[in-house]
């Protein structure tokens, strides 16, 4: 059952071969055995999960089930979940029991899924290794001496170690795709505006986008069917007709044009990643796709631009944490300003402080035009590069991450090196384009390699089709780490 697809689980539940309560207990048991080592979950609440499972079983019994009813789903601890501790990986929110549900959580609740637990993450989603979490790092189940990637590292680890059939994540500059790649699972960041940000704790509002992490493209499609939807409470939510993201999965790829940006294959990619990405592209060629070279000339600027815009927005968003209405308040302080300072200094970790300082600096008097406006202008150039490239192809491919998973601690003292982990993912985020990562084999020391798939705006169904067809002929996505004790 652990390796079953969401569709298979759904069929078992519908045929009453297994109940949601049984399924939930099975995954809770696995979490109990494995979480001590992997640290993928911050909160597990057996009673609340089982209550949802009972409700799901009632829905199934009375014939009102949806495709995911009764299936346990892990949620990144960035999504406010009513009655659940919602920490965002920070000491600042270490006692925050959310009084309301994020839109994404509302939609999963309506679909009758079971919340199997809240997953660990980099503090306020700021990190690419899950090492900035107040709750400690998550381990990569393929090799526990390495990082799972971040910031949705707990979600990627939970799916990879089969502690949950699927999970939610969020992606600001690569936070779904990079951990999916490093943990050997599939993940998609939809077009900006498709998934509501309501109740998703804000990092960089013009980039933040929720999305699923799962074992396969077919599972991602079912997850997206639940997650995507208009929400008036998010001012950037897009009002569009509801789509069925599974509709194109079986289409043949004959005639598809895949663009390979020459800048992605120029430098910086390690040899093992390069080898597997090349092999995946050769497979696409066999599937009938035509490979064309494209150019994204401003690729190199995406990291500098991202590390101006994201910290700027973060410094503004995180100013709400002042120790007054919710969150950590220092025990001792001299006056109001001292209370603000001490509460924030104690509540935020080093990486969050670093980004707040960068953001405050680039927004400060005299620097706003030179940094913030400049970065916004370059953001347009980066988006225009993609628009040009999409005249020659429907899909862009490359590596998700320049390397396979790196060792815990290897980059944690060098923020600049850590930031470069987002080299291939940040550009699509800046352009607001959908991006995805699927397993494409293994590099050095048997560590997973991710294939990055970027589509045009609103082309998620096609991207899932492209990924699914590959997963029909290759079985990388079915491989799981060797976990003996569970």
């Amino acid at each position: 059952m652990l390796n079953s697809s969401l569709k298979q689980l759904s069929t078992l539940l519908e045929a009453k071969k297994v109940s949601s309560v049984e399924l939930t207990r099975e995954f809770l048991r696995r979490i109990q055995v494995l979480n001590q080592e992997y640290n993928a979950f911050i909160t597990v609440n057996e009673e609340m999960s089982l209550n949802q499972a009972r409700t799901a079983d009632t829905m199934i019994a009375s014939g009102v089930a949806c495709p995911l009813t009764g299936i346990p789903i892990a949620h990144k601890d960035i999504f406010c979940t009513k009655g659940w501790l919602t920490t965002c990986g920070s000491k600042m929110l270490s006692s925050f029991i959310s009084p309301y549900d994020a839109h994404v959580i509302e939609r999963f609740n309506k679909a009758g899924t079971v919340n199997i637990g809240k997953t660990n993450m980099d503090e306020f989603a700021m990190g690419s290794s899950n090492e900035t979490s107040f709750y400690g790092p998550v381990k990569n189940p393929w090799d526990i001496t390495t990082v799972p990637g971040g910031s949705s590292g707990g979600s990627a680890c939970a799916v990879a170690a089969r502690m949950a059939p699927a999970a939610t994540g969020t992606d600001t500059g690569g936070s779904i795709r990079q951990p999916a790649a490093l943990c050997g699972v599939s993940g998609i960041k939809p077009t900006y505006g498709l998934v509501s940000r309501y109740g998703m704790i804000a990092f960089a509002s013009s980039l933040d986008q929720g999305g699923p992490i799962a074992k396969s493209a077919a599972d991602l499609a079912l997850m997206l069917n639940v997650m995507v939807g208009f929400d008036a409470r998010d001012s950037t939510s897009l009002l569009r007709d509801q789509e069925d993201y599974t509709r194109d999965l079986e289409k043949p790829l004959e005639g598809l044009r895949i663009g390979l940006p020459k800048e992605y294959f120029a430098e910086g990619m390690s040899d093992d990643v390069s080898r597997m990405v090349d092999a995946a592209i050769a497979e696409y060629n066999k599937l009938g796709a035509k490979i064309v070279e494209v150019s994204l000339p401003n690729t190199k600027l995406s990291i500098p631009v991202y590390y101006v815009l994201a910290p700027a927005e973060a410094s503004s968003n995180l100013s709400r944490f002042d120790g007054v209405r919710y969150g950590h308040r220092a025990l001792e302080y001299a006056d109001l300003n001292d209370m603000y300072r001490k509460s924030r200094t104690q509540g935020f970790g080093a990486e969050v402080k670093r980004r707040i300082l960068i953001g405050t600096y680039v927004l400060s008097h005299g620097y706003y035009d030179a940094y913030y406006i400049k970065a916004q202008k370059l953001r347009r150039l980066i988006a225009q590069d993609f628009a040009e490239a999409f005249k020659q192809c429907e899909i862009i491919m490359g590596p998700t991450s320049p390397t396979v998973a790196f060792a815990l601690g290897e980059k944690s003292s060098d923020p600049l090196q850590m930031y470069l982990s987002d080299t291939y993912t940040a550009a699509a985020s800046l352009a607001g384009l959908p991006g995805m990562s699927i397993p494409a084999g293994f590099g050095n020391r048997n560590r997973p390699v991710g294939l990055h798939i970027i589509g045009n705006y609103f082309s998620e169904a096609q991207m899932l089709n492209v990924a699914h067809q590959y997963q029909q002929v290759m079985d990388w996505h079915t491989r799981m780490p060797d976990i003996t004790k569970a």
Partner: protein
Amino acid sequence: MSLVLEDVKRVANLACIEISDEEARSMLDQLTGIFCLIEQMQAVNTSTIAPMSHAQDVVQRLRMDVVTEADQHELFQSLAPQVEAGFYLVPKVIE
């Protein structure tokens, strides 16, 4: 342009974050490296490019000026560090 220690302290003060001299020095090293990368932006001429704040060209939606939220202040204030009679308490500002 290069950052100096005073910049780090000034920005920390603006952001309401306490920073010791030692922390400021190590932060200065890190920020100098990061801004070195960020400076690459200046090599591109963008005088004719309009800034892009959002990926999609959308306008702010309007809605009727009516109350849409139910009053849940007791629930929300139950999360606050200090509350009295429906008010959030902070240290006295005016003598």
